[in-house]
């Protein structure tokens, strides 16, 4: 069943990226200047700092049809806001635990810390994340309304 799903999924996995304006945001632009080819299936929401990403927004995204969420922040030590990114990292790590518990898989939330200049790394992680999510089963039963099938399956 999962196998079929995996096989007959045609479109690329949908990825939402929260990019800190100091690193991820600029990194994306630099990737463009270097004309790096990246799968066209991610959307960026620029944020002032990784700390501004609400965990609820991650759930919201997964629930409204994204296959994965990536949060890009600055290297530890490089945060412009007195290490606000530390606390963000801890919070989102706990989100991973929750996702793991419910079987969604914490890997669907990607935390990556870097700098604006690592544009090739930016392209790299987006590519790798896309490949990884491509191998994962899609998340239908979790999005939107419950299907009666699921209700019956538990009994």
């Amino acid at each position, binding site marked *: 069943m999962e196998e079929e799903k995996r096989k007959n999924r045609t479109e690329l996995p*949908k990825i*939402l990226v929260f990019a800190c*304006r100091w690193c991820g*945001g*600029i990194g*994306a*632009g*630099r*990737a*463009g*200047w270097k*004309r*790096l*080819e*990246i*799968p*066209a*299936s991610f*959307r*960026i*929401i*620029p*944020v*002032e*700092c990784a*700390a*501004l*990403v*609400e*965990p*609820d*927004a991650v759930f*919201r*995204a997964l629930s*409204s*049809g*994204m296959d994965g969420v990536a949060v890009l922040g600055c290297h530890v030590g490089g945060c*412009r*806001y*007195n*290490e*606000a990114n530390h*606390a*963000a990292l801890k*919070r989102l790590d706990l989100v991973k635990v929750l996702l793991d518990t419910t079987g969604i898989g914490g890997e669907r939330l990607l935390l990556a810390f870097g700098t604006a200049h690592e544009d090739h790394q930016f*392209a790299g992680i987006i590519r790798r994340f896309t490949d990884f999510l491509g191998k994962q089963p899609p998340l239908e039963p979790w999005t939107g309304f419950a299907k009666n099938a699921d209700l019956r399956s538990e009994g």
Partner: protein
Amino acid sequence: MAKTVVLLCRCFGELDGIIALDGIADRLRAEREDTSVYLLNSLCMEEDAHRIGALLKQEGARAVCAGLCAAGSKREALWESLRNAGIERSGLFTADLREGCAWIHQGNPPGATEKAKDLLFMALAALDEKKASADVSADVHPECLVLGAGPAGLAAAVSLAGQGIPVHLVERAAQPGGMLNLISRTYPGDDHAKTRIEPLLREVETNNMIAFYPRSKVVSVRGFAGDFKIGIQGPDGTLRLRAGAVIIATGAGVLLPRGLYRYGELKQVITQMELERQWIRGVPDDKRFAFIQCAGARSPERAYCSTICCPSSLKNAMRVMEEIPGGEATIFHRDIMTPGNLLEAYYRKSMEKGVRFIRFHEEDPPEILGGDRVEAIRVRDAARGKEQVLALEKVVLSTPLVPNMDNRSLRELFQLELDSHGFFSETYPLHPLETRVDGIFIAGSARWPVSSDKAMEQGEGAAMKALGMLKRDRVSALSLSRTPGEKPGHGTVEERTCTGCGNCVSVCPFLACSLQERDGRFVSRVNKMRCKACGSCVSVCPNGTMQIPEHNYRMVGAMIRRAFP
């Protein structure tokens, strides 16, 4: 609802063949009646500014959604046109169509077009919810408070006074001068400490711009950059001062190496400071000196190099060679820390003068021999690998500078940051004299151990930074942002719904949030002057009471919903 105008930049045909802009424009027009869409050849040239400005005026636009190139590219023209049309910066939302879309998806035009469409709809959705945070501003009080009248503090006070800024110079001791009162000479100039300090002291006495408060300390701090209200407790009661900026130059203490190298047991084992006092009284009568570096520094409990000990040992060793007939000086060190040109030259000079250097390992430090008095020292020379014993009369321990006791209380008062050793720490290497609180600057050994010369340099530097703050006529919350040219806004609380849980207070990296009691319950308040809009508070607020209007949760929700329709 506010009239929104969509501006799409063709970027001189850069997007042609990858993103079908015309199709997207039609979709936009079809789905949203209230928006009018314009395709333009460019948005970044000067001549565009007027054209767009006129366009927005005639449309009566209140908000603009622009599809153009990545952030950090040329935006001046667009901003100018917005200004002409009387639209706030917060009324602009941009979608990165060139770098973030066309150029990274060149191989996949349909995908790129799809993405461009989504990005634009996301931007529009966000724009509908985007709000502007209310700015607050206050007059700058053009006076400066300088804490500590050591070399750094004095230099700062004098140079500010020279610029016509009234200075309140607060000193814990009865006399100004700080560490310079305790030492005899300064390196690398080898000039008398007195000659260095006296002009400054004279200035403090004569210049009526400087008010000197001896035996005083800070007891209360309120306010923000541009207008601090500070309570000073002196011998004759407390008084309240107002200052636009604060310079903290309280210096550092000196470690007493109890139990190290038999200090305190043998009276011939003294510290660098005791030797300095000796020089002030006159030439010491011992002949053979040993200087032991890193006594209590670069060790597990004090894992830092105190910077000044090596040069001051060189200084005193050379004086021994010069001024004491038949004097001998040996420096036992782990590394000689004389970076730069002046100090390195100083190091060479000392070698020419005949000062001996013996390197030892951290593992086997030199051992002092002798029963009731110092007779000799046994050391394993790390460079030659053989043990040797030197006869001598005096042992001088180079002990590190250690953070002042009152750094902690000052930290509490000014809500500053201390580093792992207890010194005041800066925000970023590029701004070494600035703290995480705007308008409060650090200089001298309170920041990090430095020589008196460097301390004065830092004092002047801090004075310059303070001057930059005090020369403003007004200070406003959004002008204190760390983001050039843009308005990141600041945290805003809906007091009605705040539960007062205090999450924001404990998470805020700038201590901008605080709890206040309102009719029996607590509510959070944001000091807008401190807030830098990092958003930590937003993401820990349990019920979304704390928001940054420029980036509120409704925007995020709307964008997420539009991301993949």
